[in-house]
C-alpha cells in the first residue's frame, strides 16, 4: 500500500473549483513530482494534503489513516513536514533557532541534537551561518534552511513547494541534489515544481496537472520523453 494516498479530491476556493478530482499515490521511498503551469493547482494540492485547505470531496490518507480528522498543526507529529512556497523562514530568528523550531513538537533532546548535526552535515552552509539572522541569508540559503528545518521534525513525508523558485541555476542544482540525498536517507518526497526539467531528473514518478485535473501520470523517464510534456514544460519542440 502506498504511503500517501490522495483519492478523488475536490477543493474549492469559495466558488472556484480549484481541484477537480485529483488522485495521487506516493509509495514509501519515492520522489514524486507534480508539474504544471501557473494556476494548475499544484500548490492547492499540497495545501490540501497538509490540511491547510479542506477538500469538499475525497480523502487523503497516510499509511491508511485519514488525515482530515487532524488539524494542520497536528500533522507534523504524524510525520508530514511541509516547506511552504517562498520558503518562509523565521526572518528575525537565527539559523540555529529556526532549526530548533523545526523540532518544536519533539521532546527527545539527544535525537534533536543528532538531527541538528545531520542537518548541518546536509547543508554545510548553514553550519557556517548558525548564529546569523535568517532574514539576512541569501535566497538559496533560506531555501536550505527551510528544508533543513522541515527535516528537524523527522518526517516520513516531506512536501516541497517550488524549492527552485527565484534561485540562481547553480543553487537550483545544489537544492535538487540535496533533495536526492534526503530521499536516499529514507524520506519520501512529494515535490511541486515549475522547473519540470529539474524535477523530472530527480523524481521517480511524476504527475502533470492542468487546470485542476491530472492529465498525465507516468515514470519520470517516460514523462521526459513524452511529446506533450516536452512541448509544454521542457521547452523542446
Amino acid at each position: 500500500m502506498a504511503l500517501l494516498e490522495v483519492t478523488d479530491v475536490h477543493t474549492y476556493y469559495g466558488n472556484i473549483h480549484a481541484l477537480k478530482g485529483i488522485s495521487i499515490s506516493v509509495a514509501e521511498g519515492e520522489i514524486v513530482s507534480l508539474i504544471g503551469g501557473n494556476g494548475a493547482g499544484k500548490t492547492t494540492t499540497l495545501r490540501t494534503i497538509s490540511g491547510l485547505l479542506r477538500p469538499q470531496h475525497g480523502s487523503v490518507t497516510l499509511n491508511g489513516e485519514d488525515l482530515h480528522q487532524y488539524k494542520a498543526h497536528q500533522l507534523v507529529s504524524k510525520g508530514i513536514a511541509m516547506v511552504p512556497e517562498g520558503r518562509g523562514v523565521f526572518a528575525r530568528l537565527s539559523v540555529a533557532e529556526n532549526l530548533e523550531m523545526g523540532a518544536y513538537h519533539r521532546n527527545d533532546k539527544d535525537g534533536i541534537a543528532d538531527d541538528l548535526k545531520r542537518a548541518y552535515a546536509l547543508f554545510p552552509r548553514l553550519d557556517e551561518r548558525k548564529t546569523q539572522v535568517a532574514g539576512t541569508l541569501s535566497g538559496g540559503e533560506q531555501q536550505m534552511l527551510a528544508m533543513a528545518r522541515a527535516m528537524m521534525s523527522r518526517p516520513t513525508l516531506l512536501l516541497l513547494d517550488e524549492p527552485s523558485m527565484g534561485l540562481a541555476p547553480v543553487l537550483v542544482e545544489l537544492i535538487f541534489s540535496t533533495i536526492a540525498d534526503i530521499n536516499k536517507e529514507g524520506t519520501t518526497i512529494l515535490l511541486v515544481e515549475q522547473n519540470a526539467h529539474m524535477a523530472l531528473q530527480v523524481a521517480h514518478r511524476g504527475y502533470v496537472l492542468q487546470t485542476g485535473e491530472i492529465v498525465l501520470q507516468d515514470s519520470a523517464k517516460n514523462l521526459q520523453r513524452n511529446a506533450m510534456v516536452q512541448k509544454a514544460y521542457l521547452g523542446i519542440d
Partner: protein
Amino acid sequence: MAQLDVRDAIRKGLLAGVIALGLSVIGMVEAFDQRDVITDVFSLGQLLLFAAPAVVGFLVVKGRDIRAYGPALISGALAGVFAAIPIFLLLMLTLIYPGLRAQLVNVSPTLIGILTFGSGQIVGGLLLTAVMGVLGLVGATTHVIPDRISDPLVLGVGWTLLIGVLSEVLLNILRPLLPRGVLRFLFGTKGITLVTAVILLVLITVGIAWWRAQGRERYQKRIAARSAVQVANARRTSLGAGLLLLLVLPFILGTYLTEVVDNVGLYVLMGLGLNIVVGFAGLLDLGYVAFFAIGAYMMGILTSQGDLGVGGISFWLALPICVATSTIAGIILGTPVLRMRGDYLAIVTLGFGEIIRVLATSDLLKPVIGGAQGILQIPKPEIFGFTILQPQHFYYVILASVFLALFISSRLRDSRLGRQWMSLREDEDVAEAMGIHLVKTKLLAFGIGAAFSGLAGAIFAARLSSIFPHSFNLLISINVLSLIIVGGMGSLPGVVVGALVLVGLPELLREFAEYRLLLYGALLIAMMLRKPDGLWPSPVRRRELKAEEQEKLMMQAEGLE
C-alpha cells in the same frame, strides 16, 4: 574646509524659532515658568525657550562639521538670531493688534513678560534676539572647541539643570536627613539656589573632566585586573545592594514619592502583561485596559462594604478570583479575534476595551457595579491584623506582584510556550507548519496577559478604596502600549524603564500633566527616528537591528568592489 552656509543656518534657525514659538503659544513656556530651575534666576519655561537657539547653533555647525572659528561662530549666531525672529514677530503683532489674545488664548501678559524679560515688546524683543543670538553662538562654540573641554562643560550644565528641574524630589528625600539651615542654603523656594547651581556646575564639570582624562582608564584597568571570583562577588554585592535599596525605598522617598512609585509599579505590572501579548506573541491589543477594569471591579464587588458589595470577603481571598476572572475575560476576548491579524486585531480589541468602559458606565449594570457612581467603600487589605493603608504599605504588595510577574514573564519567555509565541509573532503560517497549535498559543497569550492586568486592577481598587468607570479609559491602554514601545518590545527591563520614563517622570513634573499627550507624541516620534528598538531592547530586537546594519555595511562593501 567646510564653508559657511548662510541659507542652511537661516533655515534651521527659523525652524527652531517656529518650535520655540509653538511651545510659547500653546502655553507650555508659561506653565513651565512656574517651576524654577535655579531660584529666581532661571525657570523651566526659560530653559524650554532657550534650548532652541543653543541646540540649533550646535546642530548647524555640527551638520556641516564646521571646525574653523570664524564660520562656525557666524553660522551659530545667525541661527540663534533667526530662532528669535518668529517670537519677535509675535511680540510685534501684539503691539499692532492687542486683541490677539482672543485668538491665541495663551498669549497672556505673563507670557509676554517672560519673552521680553519684563521690558516691553520692542526693547524686550531686541533683547530676546540678542540673547538667542548669543546662545546660538555658545551652541556653536561647543562644537568648535576641543571635546575634552566642551564635553565636561556641556554635561556639567546639563546635569546641573536636570538636578535643578528635579530639585523638589531631592528636597523630599533630603528633608529628614539634613538640618533646615543647610536645606535653606541649598534649595530656594522653588528650585536650587544660585550658589548650589554654581557648586554643582564646578563639581560635575571638574569631575567629568578628571574622569575623561584619567579616571576612566584607571577604572578600566582595575576592572580588567579583577579575578573571576571578585567579579562574581562584585555582582552579588551590587545585586544585594539593589534589592536592599528596593526594600527600604519607601522610607527614603516619603509618602508622595512612594505614591508615584506605586503608580509606576502598577503600570509595570500592566506593561508586563501587555508585553506578553504584544511583545512576545505579536498580537496588537488596544483594549488592554478592559482587563484592568475587570480586575478592579471584581475586587470592588467582592470586598466592598457598601451597598454594592456582595461577597464581603477579604482582599487576599478576592485577589485570585480577580486574576482568574480577568484571565477568563482575556480568553473570551481572544476567541472571536483568533483569525484577525495586525490592524484588524487592533481595531477589534479597541472596541472590546470601549465595550467594557461603556458597560461600566451604563444604567443596565448600575445595580451591580454602580454606573457612573462606581463602587465605594472598598476596604484596605489586612495581613495578620495589620492594615495595609499607606502608599508605603502598598508599595510592598506591588513590589511583590511585580517581582512575581517578572519571574513568570522571564520563565515563560524561555519556555516552550515562549518559543511558540516568538514563532507566532514572526510568521503565523510557518508556525502552523511547524506544528504549533495557533488557537491554544494565542489564547494563552491573551489569558496570561490579562491575568497580570487583572492583578494590577485588583490592587488599584484596594489602594483607592473606590473605583469609577472614568478611571478605565482608552488612555490607559495607550499609555501601557507606549511604555512598552519606549522601553523596547519584548524586553522585561524595558517595561520597567518605559514605565519610569512615561509614568514616573510626568508625575514628578506636574506641569507636564497638561501636555502629557503632546510629549508622548514627540517622544514616540523621536524614539522611532533615533532608537526604534527602545531604551532597553530585548536581545532578539537588538540583534535584528544589528543585522540590518551589517547587511547595509555588506551591501556598501559590495558596492565598492
